[in-house]
């Protein structure tokens, strides 16, 4: 219980202000010391006073004893009274001596100096034992207390009476009281002085601390316009007078230490410069408090400088951000919410800035974004650039468009973030599309002969049938129903066939939708086969299909894939033709298209036994405008477009070839 009280008290003590701590500590010490001194002094004084008093009393008693023996024996009581009276009332003694009385051998009072009846209790209060020469006892006489000092009166060896001298103890008490008064007066004076001094001292210490505490609090709230005090402000001058303040690029040793200091360029370490007459950083000579104030001021000045630099830097980069020609986003590195967007982003994406801030970025770029940014996160700060070409983003109103997206790590407002720049490549994509379309048209052109041939057959069949029917009608011959049915059925199926070819053609020629869809890899292959298979056979090129079953679909455009396969088989045909031409003896004329699933990859391989691709050409084969053919019709875009399309779908195209023997193009796509 007591320990708790002490602990409470100690806690309270810790919590009171420094000023009061100093005051109370010093006061407590002073009081304790003073009390100790007072008690000590009193003890010494009182003891000695009492001793002296006793001695005086004994002296008086002895004197009286000697002089009174005659009177006692003569029973001359008036003289006796006169004697003791004189001794008791002699000027200053009267304050000291409370009474004197003389008693005889039988302790009967012979004479006394009191002005009232002699108190019986006093008579026998202090007897001197026969072997003693004195006896001292404290006696209470009415309101007073007195020391009764008894001295025996002797004649020779016999005691004839006793002298009692009553010394006023109040005398001592008064002295002690006076001492105490003086002491207390002195003590209170000391306390007042100490109080004033410690107040001043503590205030001198704590007031600056208090002010600095207040200033620190202001600083922590971000308010840097705190003035320490008028004197310092006036001395400090205007902030812009400081070169480091006015120009953030000027280094100052006070601010930067010696970081980045090698102005002389001679490879030797020099410190950052300081102005000869620095107006702002001070080192005062003074006591700890003054130095603290100075250090504080310097710190504040340093912070102001630093903030100014930061602000300037921020301004610089903000203007770059604001005037960036491409949309720039800053997104949160964990939640991918948009933290900031530049005006161009607002313009391009169609949202207002307020709408953008806080919006998850995936709302603008739904596909691939999550895994895409994962690759950034492992790469640490300010390094690592990830590019995502042809990403599909959505403007306001869910309007899609294509961008090239670049992302890298950064810090924004002190927090790690990701900065993205998106370059609108819709036009380019459209141009690409147009190129593809052109290529397609060219392909279509190439295919036209074959298509025409393909269409001719059904048309011929239809013509034959209808001619037959016409002839029979003309000849008024009866057509047996079974024959009619057969002919009609045949005509119908031929129409279907023609329609199918036309549909396939149409789908080939269609511009691709923007949205990719699930595509079974076998379908475009079959479509291409149906378009050009027969034509190739006419050229003695055999197209074989080895299509796997149960292959998972991939995300692509069907007709673009058709274009891809068309390009590939066209190239294969050209290679075979070239081989036939240049290496007639060799076997040529087989194109094999295989599809299979390998893990989570869907693979389509186009294999030919054409002329093959030399090593030198192999590297450039996918380059646009590169062609091995001399014909001016061929722009050299086919494989480039093929490559682009495959890459668009996140796929991969691999080429294996052996000159003179053949080429295999292997395409692999991620299964959905």
């Amino acid at each position, binding site marked *: 219980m007591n320990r708790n009280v002490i602990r409470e008290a100690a806690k309270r003590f810790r919590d009171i202000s420094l000023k*009061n701590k100093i005051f109370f500590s010093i006061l407590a010490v002073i009081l304790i010391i003073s009390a100790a001194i007072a008690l000590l002094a009193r003890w010494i004084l009182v003891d000695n006073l009492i001793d002296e008093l006793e001695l005086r009393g004994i002296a008086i008693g002895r004197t009286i004893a000697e002089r009174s023996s005659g009177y006692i024996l003569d029973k001359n009581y008036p003289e006796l009274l006169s004697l003791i009276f004189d001794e008791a009332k002699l000027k200053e003694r009267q304050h000291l001596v409370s009474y004197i009385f003389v008693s005889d051998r039988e302790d009967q009072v012979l004479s006394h100096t009191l002005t*009232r*009846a002699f108190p019986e209790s006093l008579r026998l209060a202090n007897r001197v034992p026969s072997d003693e020469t004195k006896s001292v006892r404290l006696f209470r006489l009415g309101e007073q207390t007195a020391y009764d000092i008894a001295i025996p009166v002797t004649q020779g060896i016999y005691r004839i009476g006793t002298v009692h001298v009553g010394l006023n103890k109040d005398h001592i008490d008064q002295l002690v009281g006076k001492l105490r008064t003086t002491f207390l007066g002195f003590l209170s004076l000391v306390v007042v002085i100490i109080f004033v001094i410690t*107040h001043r001292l503590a205030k001198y210490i704590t007031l600056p601390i208090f002010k600095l505490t207040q200033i620190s609090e202001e600083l922590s709230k971000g308010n840097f316009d705190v003035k320490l005090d008028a004197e310092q402000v006036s001395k400090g001058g205007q902030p812009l007078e400081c070169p480091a303040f006015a120009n953030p690029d000027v280094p100052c040793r006070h601010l930067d230490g010696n970081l980045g200091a090698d102005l002389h360029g001679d490879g030797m370490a020099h410190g950052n410069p300081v102005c000869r007459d620095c107006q702002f950083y001070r080192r005062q000579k003074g006591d700890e408090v003054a130095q603290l104030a100075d250090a504080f001021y310097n710190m504040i000045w340093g912070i102001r400088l630093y903030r100014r630099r930061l602000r300037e830097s921020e301004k610089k980069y903000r203007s770059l951000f604001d005037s960036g020609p491409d949309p720039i986003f800053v997104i949160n590195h964990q939640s991918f919410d948009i933290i900031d967007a530049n005006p161009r982003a607002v313009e391009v994406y169609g949202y207002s800035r307020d709408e953008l801030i806080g919006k998850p970025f995936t709302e603008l770029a739904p596909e691939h974004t999550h895994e895409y940014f994962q690759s950034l996160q492992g790469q640490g700060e300010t390094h690592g650039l990830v590019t995502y070409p042809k990403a599909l983003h959505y403007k306001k109103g869910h309007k899609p468009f294509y961008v090239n997206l670049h992302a890298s790590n950064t810090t924004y407002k002190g927090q790690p973030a990701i900065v993205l720049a998106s370059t609108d490549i819709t036009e380019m994509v459209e141009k690409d599309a147009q190129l593809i379309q052109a290529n397609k048209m060219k392909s279509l052109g190439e295919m036209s002969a074959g298509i025409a041939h393909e269409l001719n057959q059904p048309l011929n069949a239809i013509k034959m049938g209808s001619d037959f029917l016409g002839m029979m009608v003309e000849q008024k011959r009866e057509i047996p129903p079974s024959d009619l049915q057969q002919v009609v059925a045949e005509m119908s199926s031929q129409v279907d066939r023609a329609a199918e070819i036309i549909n396939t053609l149409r789908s080939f020629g269609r511009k691709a939708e923007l949205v990719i869809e699930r595509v079974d890899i076998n379908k475009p292959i079959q479509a291409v086969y149906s378009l050009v298979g027969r034509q190739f056979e006419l050229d003695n090129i055999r197209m074989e299909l080895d299509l796997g079953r149960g292959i998972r679909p991939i995300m692509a455009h069907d007709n673009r894939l058709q274009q891809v396969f068309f390009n590939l088989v066209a190239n294969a045909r050209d290679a075979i033709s070239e081989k036939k031409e240049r290496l007639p003896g060799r076997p040529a004329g087989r194109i094999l298209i295989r599809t299979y699933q390998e893990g989570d990859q869907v693979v389509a391989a186009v294999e030919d036994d054409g002329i093959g691709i030399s090593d030198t050409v192999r590297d450039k084969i996918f380059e646009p405008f590169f062609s091995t053919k001399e014909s001016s019709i061929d722009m050299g875009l086919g494989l480039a477009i093929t490559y682009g399309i495959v890459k668009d779908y996140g796929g991969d195209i691999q080429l294996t070839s052996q000159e003179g023997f053949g080429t295999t193009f292997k395409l692999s796509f991620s299964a959905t």
Partner: protein
Amino acid sequence: MNRLQSDLGFPLLTTTSRSLSARPGATVVFFPSTLKLGFIAIIFLAVLATGCHSPDDSYAPKTRDPGVAPGEVLLGSSLALKGHASFLGTQTLRGAMSYLNHVNEQGGVHGRSIKVVAYDDSYDPPMCLANTQKLIIEDQVFALFCYVGTPTTVKVLPLIEEARIPLLGMFTGANALREPFSRFLINVRASYYQETGAAVRHLVDDLGLKKIAVFYQYDAYGFDGLTGTELALKRFNLAPVAGGSYNRGTLDVQEGLNKIMSSGAEAVVMIGTYDPCAKFIRLAHEQGFRPLFYLVSFVGADELARRLENQQGITVVMSQVVPPPDRLDPNPLLTGPDGYVTLLRRYYPEDQPNFVGFEGFINARVLVEGLKRAGTDLTRDGFIDAIESIHDMGLGPDINIAFSANDHQGLDRVHFTRLENGQFALIKDWAEIKAQLVAPR
């Protein structure tokens, strides 16, 4: 303790609070000022309380004053009724009793008769001390009255102060009874300083004498007179040319006489009693020494006159604090129905009116006046206050009693008499004496 608190505690506290409130405003929460003050105050009180108590210097319990009964007020006196100064004591008492008996016969004062218990101290200070103690403790008198002699009265002063009992009417002009002022001492007669002062003035101014010697009793009384004379002479830039003394109770005057004779003094101031003084004068005359003898009143005019009855060719001047009681002019104080002469003859017919008794009579007059003024509720303090209220009590021509809060001497006038025809008569003309002195012998 209260004084201490008020002198130190409160001003201190206000000082403290002033300094605290002068602090500039601070928003940090300090320990509240009042608590701090309280803290300091508590410390002080604690220290003070550890044992300062005011000493009580009076152990006398305050009850009703002794000596006062519904029908009686008791007074005590210790004076020389026997021995070599017995005339002084006896006559003083008889003079007083003449008046008091008369008053008692008339019914007393406020229904109280005045009773006086008198002890003889034979002009012996120890005896006076013992008597006074007895009067105070055993007889429980209300007040002391009619003391005679300097050493005796001075001896009991501490007793009077301690017992706080008034003493009225002392047949002594000792300075010690007047300075330092004591509330309890009520002098009626003028002081020795006044007597010697007046005398020296007459001697020097009126008689043109410069060589003045002093013959004195070797005790407090003599010293007092000597001091008075010296002080008086000093005012004229003079000093006694010689001083001779004798021991109280003895007649060994020759040595003193020799000293004074060899100094060639023109006048001798004598402070003693009637026997040794008379012997001194006779011896001086026998040995051809004829200065002017001046004696203070205490010597006792009538006894001295008796002893010098047949002495011729001496000039003896005596100062008196009361006018001669046997003046021929009618004086109601003397010869009126309650006059001294009348009453003395009634109660003590064998005694002749004398200076000493006259003084006692006047003492009694003052006493009764005081008792009257004190009222029925008689206390010592009240009695003293009553005396002090007597500002102008005329007892007759040349006798005016005046007291006040700081004047406890009733009479101030000094009268001068000269021994003529065996009696002391008022000096009307100093020139006569001067002429006589100059005349060759």
